[in-house]
């Protein structure tokens, strides 16, 4: 038997002969739990990368041909959504660099199914951030009805429930501004840690209905925007309950056309003192009602959503209400030679008057027009060119982006 010894260098470990603060021993005596936030994130990331590699190896083995698959054996899937982007902006990028425009992004997705048991995870790594986006454990209690526990994407987002972080699967390079993630200056909480029930039931011979509802710990408001619950650095920080859901009709149970209604309630404490002063609130209550349609007919596709966002900015003894409407419609047309042309219009009403948007989300696109062309080549690879003209509270901006995206292997 061969033994391999690996020496790991701990960045927190003191050098021989140097002064050792007593806190070092206390931290290390407490082990993982007692580590500093950075050290803990580093260690957890290393563990996760190792886990992903193991899952990838397992998935490769499971995907190898000519094996017997039975319900007693788990099946697994590993997909890496990779993308690289070059861009040019007419005005300087936001001070809060958006991960949406990171030069390189890898999003590793793994799923393990064993009978009705599910384990699912999504870890994103870019030159801007790394984050465990989703980690869910589920049980399919009846066919096509899964009860999940963990951190999930809230079902009241039309775009993110369809595309999540898989950039290859969304035709456009950019996602609509109203659908941005929390760490990309998104104005609606997208990650919840708690319980999610996702159910699809057949209606008649071909149609179906989808009902999803989730509840759990939501986001808090910080100086840089919204901050979701971090599974790798789990502090509740006074987070409160978020409730979210959707009901949708599927004309074809196995198809991609879907029409539905969305709702969400988020109660978000303001954790940053300076932001609380600017907002004149220490708590933001947000209610969202929306409708969406994803429609496919031959070479044509339409993705549209409309959200009514009502907010109460609360201070002890007073509260102020504001609301706005935002939405988008993206039309796509498949062309010969595996080309797809698309155009998208985003618009909003009263968002510019919202203190919440002005203070905390100055890069929110009040209006934006997008034009793009995508070319799918080889297996699961695409190159996309996109031009946008957008108006935000901070500035008007023209942007040109060129992106390669893929789903590997």
């Amino acid at each position: 038997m061969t033994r391999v010894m690996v020496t790991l260098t701990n960045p927190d470990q003191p050098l021989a002969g140097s002064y050792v603060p007593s806190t070092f021993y206390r931290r290390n005596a407490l082990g993982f739990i007692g580590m500093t936030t950075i050290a803990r994130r580093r260690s957890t990331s290393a563990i996760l990368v190792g886990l992903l590699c193991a899952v990838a190896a397992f998935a490769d083995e499971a995907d190898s041909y000519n094996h017997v698959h039975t319900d007693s054996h788990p099946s697994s899937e590993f997909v890496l959504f990779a993308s690289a982007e070059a861009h040019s902006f007419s005005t300087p990028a936001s001070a809060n660099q958006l991960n949406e425009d990171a030069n390189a992004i890898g999003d590793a997705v793994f799923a393990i199914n064993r009978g009705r048991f599910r384990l699912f995870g999504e870890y994103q790594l870019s030159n801007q951030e790394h984050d465990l986006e989703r980690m869910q454990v589920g049980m399919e209690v009846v066919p096509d009805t899964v009860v999940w526990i963990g951190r999930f994407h809230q079902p009241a987002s039309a775009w993110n429930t369809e595309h999540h972080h898989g950039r290859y699967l969304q035709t456009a390079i950019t996602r609509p501004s109203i659908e941005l993630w929390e760490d990309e200056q998104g104005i609606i909480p997208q990650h919840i840690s708690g319980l999610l029930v996702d159910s699809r039931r057949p209606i008649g011979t071909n149609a179906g209905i989808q009902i999803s509802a989730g509840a759990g710990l939501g986001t808090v408001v910080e100086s840089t925007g919204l901050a979701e619950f971090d599974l790798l650095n789990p502090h509740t920080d006074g987070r409160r309950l978020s409730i979210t859901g959707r009901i949708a009709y599927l004309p074809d149970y196995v198809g991609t056309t879907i029409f539905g209604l969305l709702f969400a309630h988020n109660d978000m404490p303001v954790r940053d003192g300076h932001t609380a002063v600017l907002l004149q609130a220490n708590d933001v209550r947000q209610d969202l009602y929306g409708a969406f349609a994803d429609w496919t007919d031959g070479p044509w596709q339409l993705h549209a959503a409309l959200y009514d966002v009502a907010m109460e900015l609360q201070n002890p003894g007073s509260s102020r209400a504001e609301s706005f409407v935002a939405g988008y419609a993206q039309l796509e047309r498949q062309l010969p030679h595996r080309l797809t042309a698309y155009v998208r219009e985003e618009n909003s009403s009263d968002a510019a008057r919202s203190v919440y948007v002005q203070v905390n989300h100055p890069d929110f696109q009040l209006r934006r027009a997008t034009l793009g062309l995508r070319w799918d080549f080889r297996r699961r690879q695409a190159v996309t060119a996109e031009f946008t003209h957008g108006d935000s509270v901070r500035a008007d901006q023209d942007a040109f982006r060129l992106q390669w995206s893929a789903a590997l292997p």
Partner: protein
Amino acid sequence: MERRIAVMARRSFRWLAVLLGALLLYGARPAMAADRLVLIASINAPVSSLNSLEIQKLFLGLTVVINGLDVHPLRNESDEAMRQLFYQDVISMSESTYERRLLALTLQQGRTAPPVFRDSRALLNAIAADPHAISYAWASEVARDGRIRILKFLGSE
């Protein structure tokens, strides 16, 4: 002179043999092309039939329950013609649409894609050994296999 005639006869015979061989091969092609794709399960499977929606759900990796038992799919890619017929007659989607749907279902619901077999003998052995497994094959391949039950003829004549 006789020798020349004999050589010519031998050459003619060779050409005739080549022509006959070619005709036989040509004749065999329509027979293969005329073969039908069939939905199959183990003879011990508690499944008697599946409708079109169940077949589509099955090969998208969605849960399908027949007579109270979960069934699961095995994809047969033992030859190119079968691969193409799978998209046309079984799943009723283009290859790229099917690939995207599988990716989306993994991303959206944590589903796993059906296992793929490139060797039909291994596939038939797997089907025979697993009463929960459903797949498809050429009718001629399974006609004399007593371990396999034909559930349905797929596609058109």
